[in-house]
């Protein structure tokens, strides 16, 4: 069993960062929330609908950035975003795509195939893909992976804009500093359970980061 008795609530406009060492179950938690894995017991609900069996409405409300970019290598940046917008029957797709391409600074690569993009650019495309249908909840597993400082800043501003517009973010990361900067709540997953959960404003960020890193070293 990877997770046991995990109880997590996300309100509109919230962002929660889940930290944990390798194997703590962060990715499993995110895949469960995204509906890619089915729990042996318990449920994940989005606005009252069960995510696993809740059908189109529940799935349309979720966007996910997971370990792999989940984009098609033979399609261009623009074609990938158009494909995912079509898949979600997203309204005002073209203006949304233009907006995301501009914000993630993908305009010079608009007509480049995903196969030729660098790791960082692929990650930016993955973020655009996850947001193209304007989901209510964004599930992000290590979203800052492969991003340089500038792109991390862009991601930070996108996540802030997303939550300010009423979206909710559930993020798993090893980058505690980035997580604390991005999120309103921080949680630590350990031994299959959430062992720590607090508002970021109630945490001394420097002390939390130091303590977490020490804990991560001990857990190895």
């Amino acid at each position, binding site marked *: 069993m990877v997770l046991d008795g995990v109880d997590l609530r996300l309100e509109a406009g919230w962002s929660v960062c889940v930290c944990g060492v390798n194997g703590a179950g962060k990715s499993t938690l995110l895949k469960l929330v995204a509906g890619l894995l089915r729990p042996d017991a318990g449920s994940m609900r989005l606005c009252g609908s069960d995510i696993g069996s809740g059908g189109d409405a529940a799935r*349309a409300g979720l966007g996910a950035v997971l370990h792999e970019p*989940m984009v098609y290598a033979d399609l261009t940046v623009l074609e990938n975003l158009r494909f995912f917008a079509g898949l979600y029957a997203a309204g005002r797709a073209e203006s949304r795509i233009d907006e995301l391409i501009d914000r993630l600074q993908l305009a010079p690569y608009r007509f480049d195939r995903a196969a030729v993009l660098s790791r960082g650019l692929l990650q930016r495309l993955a973020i655009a893909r996850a947001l193209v249908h304007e989901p209510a909840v964004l599930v992000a597993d290590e979203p800052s992976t492969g991003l340089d400082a500038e792109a991390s800043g862009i991601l930070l501003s996108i996540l802030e804009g997303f939550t300010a517009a009423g979206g909710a973010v559930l993020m798993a990361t090893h980058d505690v500093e980035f997580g604390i900067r991005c999120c309103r709540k921080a949680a630590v997953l350990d031994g299959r359970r959430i062992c720590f959960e607090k508002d970021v404003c109630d945490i001394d960020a420097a002390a939390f980061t130091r303590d977490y890193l020490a804990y991560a070293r001990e857990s190895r």
Partner: protein
Amino acid sequence: MKHFLSGFNAVFLKDLIAELRAKQVLPSMLVLGLLIMWILRLASSTSSIDLAVTGPAALWISILFSGLLAQERSFSVEKENGCLEALLLAPVDAGTVYLAKVAVNLVMLCVFEIVIVPAAILMFRLEVSDWPVLVAVLMLGNLAISGVGTLFSALVCGAGARGAVLSVVVLAVLMPVMVPAVFALMVVFGAVPAALVGTGALAFVGSLGSALGYMVAFDAVFIAACWLLFGIAVRD
């Protein structure tokens, strides 16, 4: 319905664009198909069997094996970069994805046959007695190959030797429809020897009408079953 149409269109267009750009499948299908037919034509030239009898069999062998190439590719692209997970996350029913993939494979087979059928007619000196029936037989066969192949390509896409596994499984499942398919083409090419009707492997087919009936029934049953099973195949 909104998600069905948008999902179907999105997957269908995406696969076509990806294939047109990569140009991986159609050229391979054409080379393999023409090679198979050429080898079988050479073998037939040393035998006393009527070319109009071996021609339909050669044509179906060529379509079957070349079709497998398209089907294998149709799901291997979904495994790259975790794209299959993105499809599963979307509010699109797995059955819709299945139908779009079947439609793409059908288009690929039809394009392939635009070249391979005239090639077969020329190589085996076949005479088409009824063009609409020829098209109908080919379309029914294409539906069977695409319908079954798409499901099994999803099932084996995680397997190491997926090409080999796919060939073995799909060919075995398609055998019941290949018998009436070969028989129907023999009739279309005016090559059913009277002695063959009602005897041997073709005994159960009987007539062109019943051959087409078997093919329609096979397509209906297997496509419905594959459509229902596809969700389980991709999720589990």
